């Protein structure tokens, strides 16, 4: 069995979703397995049309900071979150959606990007993933 990375994606902030997808793609590229557990604000990014909607965790300034960051990222040729997500799935990455968050926030399966989600689960599913992981992060 190959080594594995697990990340709890709690934040929905744009920059933190970037960190998540960059680390996860790095792990897959270097021969590890990767599982992302989307919960709370992170899960909102899996809503249809939601992936790029997160605000900046610092200096968002009602969106001015975010658009400045976007401009700089474009200039540096940084890939979009959509592309990183596509690569993540293509390389065999797994996505778990937190069912409790869905219940609390009134999110239905049809509101989510079902094409991206591998499975729906609760803490037990996450623990089963994490206990066999060599890298485990909370973002």
């Amino acid at each position, binding site marked *: 069995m190959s080594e594995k990375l697990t990340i709890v994606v709690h934040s929905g902030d744009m920059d933190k979703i970037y960190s998540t997808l*960059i680390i996860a*793609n*790095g792990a*897959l*590229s*270097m*021969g590890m397995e990767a599982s992302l557990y989307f919960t709370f604000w992170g899960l909102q990014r899996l809503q249809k049309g939601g992936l790029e909607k997160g605000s900046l965790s610092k200096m968002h300034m009602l969106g001015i900071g975010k658009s400045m960051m976007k401009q700089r990222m474009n200039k*540096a*040729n*940084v*890939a979009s979150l959509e592309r*990183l997500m596509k*690569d993540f799935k*293509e*390389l065999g990455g797994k996505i778990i959606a937190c069912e409790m968050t869905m219940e609390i926030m009134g999110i239905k399966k049809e509101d989510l990007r079902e094409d991206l989600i591998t499975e729906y689960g609760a803490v037990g599913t996450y623990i089963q993933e994490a206990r066999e992981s060599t890298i485990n992060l909370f973002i």
Partner: protein
Amino acid sequence: MSKIKVDCCGETCPIPLIKTRKAIREASPGDIIEVRGTHQASKKEIPMAVKALGLKLIDVKEEGGEWTIIIQR
């Protein structure tokens, strides 16, 4: 045995790694993969990935800020 070329010039983290990984997945055992790029950290990190994947690193060279890494699956 075929040769697969991967162009990562102008691409930044983590795209060169991802593109290399995808090419390795598509390659058959024995195939040669030639990756070209300009992102400096990747010049160091692609060989790390090659090692982690248990593949053979044939060559790493650089000329005028553009590197070429040759891998054998």
